[in-house]
């Protein structure tokens, strides 16, 4: 009896120790500092903040300040930290390698589809607003929560389509934003081509054209199956701008059209009148899209070339002249001959309307659209023709996503 009681007691103690061992094992921090610049007290508060935010959004918001990756590199180190440790499958992690002075964003699970380049930029910008390391981390956590919780970040837009006006710098008031967004949305829906504007303070050192392409690609811009659109990115920090076009936007906003567009709005940007500048941008895009829809993109040149040799009697021109002469004469004589025939049946009774006909009801309903494509023939040097020789030129390139974009950049 005593032996059994002793065994039971030992078993209970062992279980208690096992459980308490797990309970009192070191908690996995979402805010990790091996560099030592954040105090223990601040670290504790930041972890509480990160825990709360993570619980609220259903994903892990992590920050790592790394003293040394011990040769692994910040990417591998971060991947190991976020994968090996007991975090959920949806992770957002900002890791700073203080040894190499680089930062790195790691995402996994559903977070990967939410955090694109622009979100990363927004997160880094938020981090940099802090006055000290602890505040920086706190700002980062707040911004991460804001983005993942789907709150006012982005200034509107539907769940299916990103907002066509992104003002990260808050230069526009709420009413100005509403006016500009209404103009952009109206043109986009009417012309079935996204017309968007993004205002940032800086591109984080990246080339602004590449920034614009990636912002367009990774945030789901582009109208319909063709993904057509134009995006104007303005970096206020260095007064630079870039245009990125895709799909039908490449044709409608060719090189000349982009020059025309920026000539229209640059004065407004230079004077800081962004509301009027962006409304002018929307109006000019509407004008350029209308021209393209009518088959005459801006800069269409109908002029022909001259003769291809200096001979006085050029067989090609002679043949052409004879052909034109025969056709012109046939048309002329046909007109004269037609005056000899004035008897014909009337097809309609238009002379017998009593009053004006009335349209009581009219409805135009969009059903669907379909996009087809034909591969261009290769030239002898293996390259493809960049564009139809009869269309104005539209310089294109491939973005980091592999998609073809048109575009240009400059300063104001």
């Amino acid at each position, binding site marked *: 009896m005593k032996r059994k009681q002793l065994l039971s007691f030992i078993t209970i103690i062992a279980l208690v120790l096992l459980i308490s061992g797990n309970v009192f094992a070191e908690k996995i921090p979402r805010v990790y500092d091996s560099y030592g610049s954040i105090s223990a007290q601040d670290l504790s508060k930041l972890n509480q903040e990160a825990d709360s935010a993570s619980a609220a959004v259903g994903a892990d918001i992590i920050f790592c300040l790394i003293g040394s990756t011990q040769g692994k590199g910040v990417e591998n180190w971060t991947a190991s930290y976020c994968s090996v440790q007991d975090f959920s499958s949806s992770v957002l992690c900002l890791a700073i390698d203080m040894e190499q002075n680089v930062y790195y964003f790691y995402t996994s699970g559903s977070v990967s589809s939410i955090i694109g380049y622009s979100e990363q930029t927004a997160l880094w910008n938020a981090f940099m607003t802090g006055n000290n390391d602890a505040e920086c981390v706190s700002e980062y956590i707040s911004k991460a929560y804001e983005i993942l919780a789907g709150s006012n970040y982005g200034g509107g837009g539907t769940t299916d389509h990103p907002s066509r006006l992104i003002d990260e710098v808050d230069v526009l008031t709420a009413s100005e934003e509403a006016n500009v967004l209404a103009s952009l949305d109206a043109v986009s829906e009417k012309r079935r081509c996204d017309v968007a504007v993004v205002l940032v303070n800086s591109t984080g050192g990246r080339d602004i054209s590449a920034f614009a392409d990636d912002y367009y690609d990774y945030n789901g811009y582009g109208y319909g199956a063709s993904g057509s659109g134009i995006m104007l990115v303005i970096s206020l920090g260095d007064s630079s701008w870039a245009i990125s076009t895709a799909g039908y936007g490449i044709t409608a906003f060719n090189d000349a059209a982009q020059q025309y567009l920026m000539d229209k709005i640059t004065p407004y940007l230079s004077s800081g009148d962004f509301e009027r500048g962006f409304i002018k941008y929307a109006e000019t895009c509407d004008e350029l899209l209308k021209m393209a829809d009518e088959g005459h993109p801006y800069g269409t040149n109908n002029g022909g070339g*001259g003769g291809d040799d200096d001979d006085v009697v050029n067989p090609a021109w002679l043949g052409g002249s004879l052909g034109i*002469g025969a056709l012109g004469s046939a048309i002329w*004589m046909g007109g*004269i001959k037609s005056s000899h025939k004035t008897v014909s049946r*009337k097809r309609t*009774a238009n002379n017998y309307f*009593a009053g004006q006909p009335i349209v009581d009801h009219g409805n*135009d309903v969009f059903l669907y659209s379909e996009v087809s494509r034909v591969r261009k023939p290769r030239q002898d040097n293996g390259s*493809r023709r960049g564009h139809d020789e009869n269309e104005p030129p539209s310089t294109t390139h491939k973005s980091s996503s592999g998609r*073809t974009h048109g575009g240009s950049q400059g300063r104001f």
Partner: protein
Amino acid sequence: MSEVLEYKCPCCGGAIQFDTASQQMKCPYCDNIFDLSTLRSYEEEMAKDAGDNMDWGRPTDEYIDPSIAEGMRVYSCQSCGAQIVSDENTAASSCPFCGNPVVMGGQLSGELKPDLVIPFKLDKNQAKQALLNYYKDKKLLPRTFTNQNHIDEIKGVYIPFWLFDADANAHMRYDASTVRRWSDEDFDYTETSHYLVTRSGRATFSNIPVDGDTKFADDLTESIEPFDYSQAVDFQTAYLSGFFADKFNVPAEECVPRANQRARESVEDFFRSTVSGYSSVVPANSSIRLSNGKVKYALLPVWMLTTRYNGTPYTFAMNGQTGKFVGNLPVDKGLYWKGFAIRFAGIAAAVYALSWLLRLL
């Protein structure tokens, strides 16, 4: 014998005719002018006179000369007593012996009485002048053509028409599409957007004319449209005096499809014109309902001349109210090819010279 009406001048007893210039009855002999109501009263009084009964054994009304073909009728001229043979539809003519105008009243009375008539506004001289003007600018007209015209044979004819009124309610449906094209380095793209377009509405038609006489080609009678029906008046046989006229031989029911066809084309054209902004528009369904249909029987004035050239008949017609002149003319092939050659040489030389000049620049 059918009833024959002749209107005599109260002054000199001559055969009085409708004058287009004054729009009243005028005696061509003494130039007196009478309005229709006065003349009607005079005729009514005159009709009460009983003439001598000098029966010389003239043929009865029932007598039918077997030599006269079916579809023909015989009338007796009130002026000279000659027998006038005309087809069964003739309502007004002239005596071939004494030239007096005659109106066969029985052809245009009772159920056959027209609802309205547009009197002639233009006289024979104006019609002849219009014909000469018509020839004037025709560069390819054979020179001998005008020499062979019997221009004095131009005659004024009242042609029977059916005039159709109706209200039309329409519902139209179209398949429309827009096309956009663009290119990148590798592909040429084509985006086609499809739309369903509908239009509904109404229209009212008034006086759509359809020729009710097979003697006159429909394309000829439609070519001289339109007539101004605001100048139409209630029918009186006096208006026909001095002119030729026919009653209808195509009933209104047989003319309905033609009126319907023209009304339909007009409605479809109108609603199609309200669909714009698409690369292509294809009518998918057309529903047109007519209601409040009315038919009127009218006599409309036309000056006509038929001539022959190289065995081919050519008919000219002029709207007796508006003066619109139509008619197909022959084309002299020699003149055509001569004109073609001159113009061909001129245009070819001008184009080549221009191209040479542009290359120099």
